[in-house]
């Protein structure tokens, strides 16, 4: 495993952005067991957390944080009280703060979408 310096920073950055202690996760997998969107995810939520613990920067390419709907189901299920959706948000923020917006308003078909959908999406997926 390649734990380069910049990768090790990932752990600290995610902790700072989320305000969570990433090492309190003991990998029980309950978050993933209850997540309603794992079929669409390329890595399970607990796998993402494990990679962040290890400082594995490749996890930033995962679609999991962008698939997460902030539904908080894992948040109520985690026996350690970890705020997994806040960790997913931190992962999104790392990209968004590099100006890597996930969604481009100009390319969206917005005409039939209610404002609540657009505002919430843009809050989560653009910087």
């Amino acid at each position: 495993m390649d734990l380069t310096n910049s990768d090790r920073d990932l752990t600290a950055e995610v902790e700072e952005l989320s305000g969570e202690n990433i090492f309190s996760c003991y990998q029980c997998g309950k978050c993933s067991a209850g997540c309603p969107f794992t079929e669409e995810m390329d890595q399970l939520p607990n796998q993402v957390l494990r990679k962040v613990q290890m400082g594995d920067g490749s996890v930033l390419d995962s679609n999991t944080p962008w698939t997460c709907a902030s539904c908080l189901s894992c948040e109520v299920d985690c026996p350690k009280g970890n705020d997994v959706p806040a960790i997913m948000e931190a992962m999104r923020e790392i990209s968004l703060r590099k100006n890597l917006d996930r969604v481009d308003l100009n390319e969206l078909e917005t005409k039939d979408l209610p404002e609540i959908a657009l505002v919430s999406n843009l809050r989560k997926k653009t910087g």
Partner: protein
Amino acid sequence: MRDIAYYPGCSLKEAAKSFEDSALKVSEEMGVNLKELSRWNCCGTVYSLTDDNLMKQLGPIRNLIRARDEGSDELYTLCSMCDNTLKRANSLVRGEEDKRDKINNFMDQENDYEGSVEVHHYLELLRDDLGWGEVRDRVVNPLEGLNVAPYYGCMLTRPKEIGLDDPHDPTVFDELVESLGGTPVDFPYETECCGSYNTVDNEEMVLNKTQTITAGAKKSGADVIITACPLCHFNLDSRQSDLLEVAPNHKPVPVIYFTQLMAIAFGYPEVNKFAEHAIDPREVLELKTKAGSER
């Protein structure tokens, strides 16, 4: 008529206008005037989970300041996303002194806010303040024989700290349906997420959930699904008609706001504007209730 301070949020003025119209009408019936804040702004729809960026907390907190400045120590919401965002922002102000100070210092044109306003969802007004007896007393068309699937979604019950009911086994909608004379049906997806904001850039993911949730309700015998969330409503109602294009065998279930159900039982079905729904509820309601069919 008793005035209570009311924060509508953006959706209730546009996409979910019939949610507001029905709520205003049934409240009036119960002697309550939902008094809209004279100034308010968008709450941001989703609570920011980013610890180091307080800018995103200003929107919801400004609304709490408006309520306080208008002399209210309680503020009522209908949209479950607004309710969640306002409650969580309020908890932040109450619980994290350093962040509260930063926010207050930044908003130097406002008087400091310390979290004095109590935010409630309208369902809490019904359950905890007026009581189900008050609801029952206003029923003129009991919903006998109507099977209603209570769809709680995410934001009414999670996280635990601010949820208005048990996150795993909520009952407030069931109690409402019973008070209206209808039958709440147990269905397995009542607290499962609809896909939320992913409806904008990942329609397929939402369509899968729309199908799971609505078919699950149908299988449990539901005639109609109730919700308190304009985004859930879009994902379950409008997206259900998109689903029918790719899955013509899907058996649609109409999705309505809980206040629209109340309006039917209270004898004011005309406020509901059901013609605007993608899955028209009128046929099933006509079949099952005395007065549900009107408009």
